[in-house]
């Protein structure tokens, strides 16, 4: 093993000492009303150089797509072209206030309107709001729309059905919107069990949330039937679009008769994930749901864009202003660059890469359910765990030692010792081959060695139990525990 992550003895920034060289301009003293003055403020005062060094060195102890393959299942960690970095940080993005008069933000409004239209074209939906800040936020928005729709028809409904293979945000979002969540088990083929669905559906059902292809990478073959069943009880069909990367140009939620869909721009549309965010989670709907979309809507009149707040049925707002605009700039630029043809190729390549990689690691790793997968696949390390005591976590850590990010592990929970692998279209055959080899090597390695992993990362295995027990969540809590304060 030759890969080795950098390691710096990087203290907490609060432990650094030095002399602050920040200088803005000369200033006088100012008056704060009595009783409202702050008496002490204890942030580290250190020079710019020390701050830059601190974060530069910390960054080297972090692994990103720009360092190597990052096939976290369900996360679509593809390459983010650099022109988007440039465009999303132009002064015409950065220095624009969202409350400026419409006349002075025509560029922003146009871009957003165009992006809405592009997302409609990709999804075959009728209208899109860009407001939600992330996928889960889009789901929540979608659930609010479903609620408003049913209430509007004076048929309020209380339940939302979610397959057990769904991403955790689905049930969480539905619950947040006030619905009772009914989880239904997957069928023996890994797809939604139509019998179970049928049993769960009723006049109480407000919506059914489906991810298609699902988190196993399987396309719900009975999608047409499923949609019919859902609609027949008057419920809405919700599409978790985080996996849209698999099917662009081949099918579309609108065609599959979904009523509401959210997009994860930070997955499919090549926005980097920033170590956790920001992203953007636009929501698309069919025409009949358009009145419920959050305000403002962007309308174009005589070549000028205007904000329309005056919409009777709207659910209102799900966050301030228009959404994560700078992220929208990235997605818009990416869609322009790919074009309709390019996006289709993206999906073809993503699916090809996934099936290719799968073919290299199966049967060493077991493959539950059907062989044909879309953009991702889930294998099980059950046999390895049983025979050698090597678990999914161990495999994950051993991959880190080889300079690769691990797959998503232990999800979806219906697969034991799951490794959920999404190579994305960005990776070349050469890299896929190396990743496959790494997985095979780990399976054949001495289990004792594997369980020592990782040794090439900046630290060895973390003690998560200790973290939860000690619960040190800030410098001040640390100081208190350490008796320093």
């Amino acid at each position, binding site marked *: 093993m030759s890969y080795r992550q950098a390691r710096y003895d990087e203290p907490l920034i609060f432990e650094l000492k030095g002399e602050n060289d920040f200088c803005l301009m000369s200033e006088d003293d100012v008056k704060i009303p009595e009783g409202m003055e702050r008496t002490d403020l204890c942030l580290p005062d250190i020079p710019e150089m020390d701050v830059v060094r601190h974060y530069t060195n910390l960054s080297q102890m972090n692994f990103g797509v720009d360092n190597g393959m990052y096939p976290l299942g369900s996360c679509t960690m593809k390459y983010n072209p650099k022109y988007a970095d440039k465009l999303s940080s*132009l002064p015409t993005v950065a220095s624009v206030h969202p409350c400026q008069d419409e006349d002075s933000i025509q560029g922003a409004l146009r871009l957003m309107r165009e992006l809405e239209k592009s997302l409609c074209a990709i999804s075959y939906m009728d209208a899109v709001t860009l407001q939600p800040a992330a996928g889960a936020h889009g789901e929540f928005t979608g659930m609010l729309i479903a609620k408003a729709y049913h209430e509007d028809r004076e048929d309020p409904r209380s339940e939302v059905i979610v397959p057990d293979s769904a991403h955790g945000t689905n049930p*969480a979002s539905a619950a947040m919107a006030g619905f009772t969540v009914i989880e239904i088990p997957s069928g023996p083929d890994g797809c939604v069990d139509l019998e179970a669905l049928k049993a769960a559906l009723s006049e109480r059902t407000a919506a059914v949330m489906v991810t298609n292809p699902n988190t196993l990478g399987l396309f719900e073959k009975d999608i047409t039937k499923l949609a019919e069943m859902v609609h027949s009880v008057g419920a809405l069909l919700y599409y978790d679009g985080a996996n849209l990367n698999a099917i662009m140009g081949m099918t579309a939620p609108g065609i599959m008769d979904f009523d509401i869909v959210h997009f994860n721009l930070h997955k499919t549309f090549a926005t980097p994930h*920033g170590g956790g965010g920001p992203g953007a989670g636009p929501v698309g709907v069919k025409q009949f749901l358009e009145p419920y979309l959050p305000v403002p809507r962007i309308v174009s009149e005589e070549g000028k864009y205007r904000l329309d707040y005056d919409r009777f049925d709207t659910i209102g707002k799900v966050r301030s202003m228009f*959404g994560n605009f700078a992220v929208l700039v990235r997605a818009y630029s990416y869609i322009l660059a790919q074009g309709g043809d390019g996006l289709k190729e993206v999906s073809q390549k993503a699916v090809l890469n996934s099936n290719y990689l799968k073919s290299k690691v199966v049967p060493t790793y077991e493959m539950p359910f059907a062989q044909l997968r879309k953009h991702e696949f889930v294998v099980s390390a059950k046999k390895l765990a049983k025979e050698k005591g090597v678990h999914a976590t161990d495999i994950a850590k051993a991959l880190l030692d080889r300079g690769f990010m691990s797959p998503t592990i232990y999800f979806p929970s219906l697969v034991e010792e799951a490794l959920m692998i999404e190579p994305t279209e960005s990776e070349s055959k050469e890299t896929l081959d190396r990743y496959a080899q790494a997985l095979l090597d780990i399976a054949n390695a001495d289990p004792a060695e594997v369980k020592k992993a990782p040794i090439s990362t900046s630290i*060895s295995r973390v003690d998560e139990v200790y973290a939860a027990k000690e619960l040190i969540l800030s410098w001040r809590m640390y100081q208190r525990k350490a008796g320093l304060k």
Partner: protein
Amino acid sequence: MALDRRMLDELGIENVEELFSDIPGEVRIDDIPLPKGKSEIEVVRQVQAMLAENLTADVAPSFLGGGYYHHFIPSAVNTIISRSEFITSYTPYQAEISQGMLQSLFEYQSYIAELTAMDAANSSNYDWSTALGEAATMCHRILPKRTFLVPEAMSWDKRSVLKNYVSGAKLNVVEYSYDPFTGELDLDSVREKMTEDVCGIYAEVPNLFGIIDSQAPKLKQEFPNIPLVVGVNPLSLALVKPPGEYGADIVIGEGQPLGLPMNVGGPSLGIFACRMEHVRKMPGRLIGMTRDQDGRRAFCMTLQTREQHIRRSKATSNICTNEALLAVAVSAYLGMTGSKGLRSVARINLKKAAELMERVAEIDGYDSPVFSGAHFNEFVVKAPLRPEKLNKLLLRHGIIGGLPLQKHVPRLVDHMLLTATEMTSDDDVDRLVTALREVAQ
């Protein structure tokens, strides 16, 4: 991006279409009705040209605030968050290879805890408004009643988002009013709205009117058992008593003023901090300090059992993707300013706004400030014409005017919020005063 023939061959397939054979014919499409792809050079030009239709605060004097501000961002902040190891990483599920992000986020939590004088902060919410929504439902988890009190002096956006966030828990949002003379919260009004059913009180410092509300600290004194949520502009905390010192249970706010660009409103950063006793009821991701197998100091995500990927429909929140990179930017900004620099920025803001206030007061027809409370970096003015109209006229002078308030507080007809920051030059103020005088005539 053509397909790699070698892979197709190894899979023993002729055409990639075969990999899509599981998609039933009736839901197949042939293509995406969008134009063909473009090269980078074309995309860059087209998007640049489109965005050039935006007027920026770099070229036009701007007096617009109300939650988003035109502040100076040291170049080094961008240097730091341009590190692609940060940008192109996912949520740090594999702690061992992600210590950089984990430590940075722990430091962010620490900075927020220091600023607000709270114990713990999460590693970000989407923005202030959704943080408010989550704070309200968290209050309900702490004290399972159904009325949440909010100020009348609050932005329309936040109120709307709040209502959506509390709709699931079926909370009522009830407003208390402000003192029409000082612009501070009206304690009598709070008392009046206080019932057995209240699960939480929300106050802002500075409030919508830019006022450092000296009544806010009295809330916990009067209602010690009701969870108190305080919303802040974190920059003001360099000078103003932190909510942790007057009993807040939860502190929320918008991180944008701390080194983030305005970005037409997003992404921005929802601050969320609370007392230790409530930490298990918190939304969002938490990074904890721990150790590795060899005893080295290390960091990892913790209390994940509150989160959606474990607890699913019982999670404290649905949040997954958050605003992590912006949290790093805020930390970098605070690293650069330190206590000394942050105080300096805050002082300059306060002073510039005071100067602007005086200058506007001198113009016939403008009432400035409308409220007598102490202001941070913005204040309310009553104008001789509708602020929306006024702003259009100012735009002709190349000036970005203030925030009209009627939409937020309906009784404030013809009122607007004017803001100054360290970016406001004397020349900017002169230009505004001249223009205001002219349009008033």
